[in-house]
């Protein structure tokens, strides 16, 4: 992926209309549908890949109901790059590349999570989030 990789490019609903007033069922359904459509469009090999990143907006129970979906292994922060023991230059280079890939995957995952959360919060009046523990 190039450095200009943007999740927005995948989204079919680039803008999310604000739901005015109480977040009632219809409003929540509309937002939920747009989120599902958008995340499904973002390609990833995680979870088998056929549902894109839909798993980011579904509960574990809902994910398990998806036909043919493989359970998603969430990318973890690989931490700083360390070498265990003596290795040849070629092995070090390989381990380093794998480490960079893990970092990129982790950040992509976190960035998209953050974008989705911010979009969801923007979609409703902030007052309705006060009750969240």
């Amino acid at each position, binding site marked *: 992926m190039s450095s200009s990789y943007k999740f927005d490019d995948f989204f079919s609903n680039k803008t999310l209309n604000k739901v005015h007033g109480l977040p009632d069922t219809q409003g929540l359904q509309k937002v939920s549908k747009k989120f599902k459509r958008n995340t499904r469009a973002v390609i990833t090999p995680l979870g088998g890949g056929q549902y894109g990143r839909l798993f980011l907006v579904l509960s574990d129970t*809902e994910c398990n109901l998806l036909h043919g979906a493989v359970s998603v292994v969430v990318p973890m922060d690989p931490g700083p790059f360390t070498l265990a023991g003596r290795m040849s230059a070629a092995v070090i280079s390989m381990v380093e590349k794998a480490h960079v890939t893990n970092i990129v995957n982790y950040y992509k995952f976190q960035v998209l*999570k953050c974008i989705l959360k911010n979009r969801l*919060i923007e979609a409703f009046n902030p007052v309705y989030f006060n009750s969240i523990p």
Partner: protein
Amino acid sequence: MITHDVPFIMSHLKTEFGKITMDELEVEVQAIKNYAFDPAGSIDILLNSVFSHAEFCEIAGAKISDEQIINLAYLLINKF
């Protein structure tokens, strides 16, 4: 600052504000029964309406089964 992820926030909003009264459910049931399928349009429009209805029923605590969802879609197509 909200530290929870999207599924949690959505679930919270649904629980707190997405309550549906029996009257609202009745209106929704009537609306889907009166739905007019346009064969010139995409079948997805009909399916989306049926799935939305199923979701609405589920939130209202009156979940309909997969068989009922399929039957409903057939009924709406046959009505044309």
